[in-house]
């Protein structure tokens, strides 16, 4: 049942991505709006899947990497839908929906069956760590997507290439605000994720810092984001540089958390 719910959410994300792509290719804003609704439907179904997982298992296997990635996809989608209430970012669905689909698809590919969490990953700290870090990652991923679209649009406007008639992409200002908002939410969550990870270490090994490859990479990525946040909120960094930083920072974070996690 839970698997079918996940299949349905993956199909919804995929459908939203296709609709958004068609909306862009055919210059049809209606398809784009429909894509947002389908994405929202997918997020609700996805949330229902996690709720079912939580009620079915006393210790839901969120600490499993694929499931954590699926949670990231849901968190990113939900944050995007929340940002839509404040900002005109509906055009960003063309990137958010495929990213959400890839996250859920990856999760389904590697966890065809629900597995119970290992003993070491059970308890309060692991779940707090995974929830906070995944939500932080999802938020920073959303900032990177907004940054990516910003860079494309910036380049187009600088090159003075007109948009086709009917295509409505978010304005640079909306993308920059989306980037800023996602960073403002994502960085504190990431910080809490790092701290709860240390607590988890303490609970398991008696040491907060064990200098594992995952820990070193994560702390380095966090440090980079700390610098980016200071630059963004403290020094009046321009929108273009902020977009570049969001994309580069997330690439580093992704490698540090997911890449190193897979390799080790």
């Amino acid at each position, binding site marked *: 049942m839970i698997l079918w719910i996940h299949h349905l959410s993956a199909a919804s994300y995929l459908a939203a991505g296709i609709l958004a792509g068609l909306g862009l290719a055919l210059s049809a804003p209606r398809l784009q709006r429909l894509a947002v609704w389908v994405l929202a439907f997918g997020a609700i179904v996805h949330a229902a899947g996690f709720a079912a997982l939580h009620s079915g298992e006393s210790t839901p296997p969120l600490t499993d990497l694929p499931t954590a990635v699926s949670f990231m996809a849901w968190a990113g989608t939900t944050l995007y839908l929340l940002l839509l209430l404040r900002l005109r970012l509906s055009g960003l669905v063309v990137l958010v929906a495929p990213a959400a689909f890839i996250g859920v698809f990856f999760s389904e590919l590697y966890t065809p069956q629900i597995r119970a969490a290992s003993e070491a990953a059970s308890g309060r700290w692991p779940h707090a760590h995974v929830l906070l870090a995944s939500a932080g990652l999802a938020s920073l991923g959303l900032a990177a997507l907004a940054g990516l679209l910003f860079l494309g649009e910036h380049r187009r406007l600088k090159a003075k290439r007109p948009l086709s008639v009917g295509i409505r992409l978010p304005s*640079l200002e909306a993308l920059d605000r989306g980037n800023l908002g996602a960073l403002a939410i994502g960085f504190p969550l990431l910080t809490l994720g790092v701290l709860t990870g240390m607590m988890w270490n303490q609970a398991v090994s008696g040491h907060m810092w064990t200098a594992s490859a995952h820990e070193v990479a994560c702390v380095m990525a966090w440090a980079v984001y700390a610098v980016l946040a200071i630059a963004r909120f403290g020094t009046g960094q*321009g929108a*273009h540089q902020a977009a570049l930083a969001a994309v580069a920072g997330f690439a580093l974070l992704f490698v540090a958390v997911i890449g190193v996690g897979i390799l080790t």
Partner: protein
Amino acid sequence: MKILLLGLNHRTAPLEVRERLAVDDPAPLLQKLVDCDEIDEAVLFSTCNRVEIVVLTRNLDAARHRVHGFLRRDLPSGGALPPGTDLARHLYEHVDAEAMCHVFRVASALDSMVIGEPQILGQCKEAYRAAAECGACGPILGRLFQNAFATAKRVRTETRVAERPVSVASVAVDLARQIFDHFADKRALLIGAGEMIEMALRKLREDGLESVAVANRTPERAAALAAEIGATAHGLDELPELLVHADVVLASIAGNAPLLDLESVSLALRARRNRPVLVIDIGVPRNVDAAVNELENVYLYDIDDLASVASENAEQRRGETVKAEAIVVEQQQRFDGWFAALRAVPTIQHLRARAESIRAAEVERAISRLAFDESSREGIEHLTRAIVNKLLHAPLSRLRREAGREEGMAYLEAARVLFALDDPQDGGADDAGSDDGSLDQEDGEDRAPAGAPDPE
């Protein structure tokens, strides 16, 4: 007489060439043109997208040579042409029917960067008024332009070309929407004043923009515009400070050197903590140094950049432009008929003068031979004048009509030969009197009754 049009526009010449040829005050240049023997009338049309000279001439080759030289030597008021520029490569030339068509298309905004845009007609009227005021535009080019205005009116009322007009101003606002999410907290800076800038501002206002500053060389004009649009007025010396707070800059001010250079905009950008700025420069010559676009958070669009955006507009209006082009051709043919008929005027005048001199001489001769009282004399004058008029009515009407057609020259030529209009020795009243009888006899056979309709 020939109508010659020479010019360049946004399709044939880049902005750096057009801005060198832009003219603020055409009057002295037009005076210089019409002072030349080969040019009878002239109108100079200079906008941000085109510079065109229309002349009326009796010597096409000499006029062409003269206007080419004028464009090369007299017109570059905005500084020397860029090195290596071959001006002839950018120029187009139209003669007579083509020139008429072109003027009509320009006035109807069918040749504009943004098809159907409303500003061009006003600019055409301004060019005509300037030429008429300095005496460079005479009856023929005057009539050409009056017909152009009538054509533009027909195009606007009979087609949908101008419906939902997409002007350079609305393209500028569309660009602003791609950069800014909303305008309520934004500030616009207008440098200079002009219809296009006002239109852009009006559209931004519709989208919520409230804060506007106007900077002009003459503070009084800035104050007048500011009062009209509810903005604050400033002098150009305040530009550095105004730039810091401006999110949208609309520049269109006369001047040969850029007002905003890389350094001044760079300083302002730093002071505004790199918040993005959209700069729309519709001045020709340009008001903003092109290098400003290299700054990361500045989006600079000049008049040529707006062209690529506007070209989509042309595509959407293609169906309507076909109808508009048909109106232009119809109006051009009508004007061409009138223009061609002008060729018959000297021949008709000559023929009338010849007939009148013969009549007057014959009446004088008859009166000197016979004793007539005053009332009889008046009667003879009246009678002979009526005969001459009725005799000439049909051929003159025919000449007028045929002059507008291709074969009209043959009729004019035949009239000149038959009535010996080009032979000064064969036109005197005495000579006419010598073959008076035979001419009367032959003419008498073909004479149409008074008031008879024209055979045609």
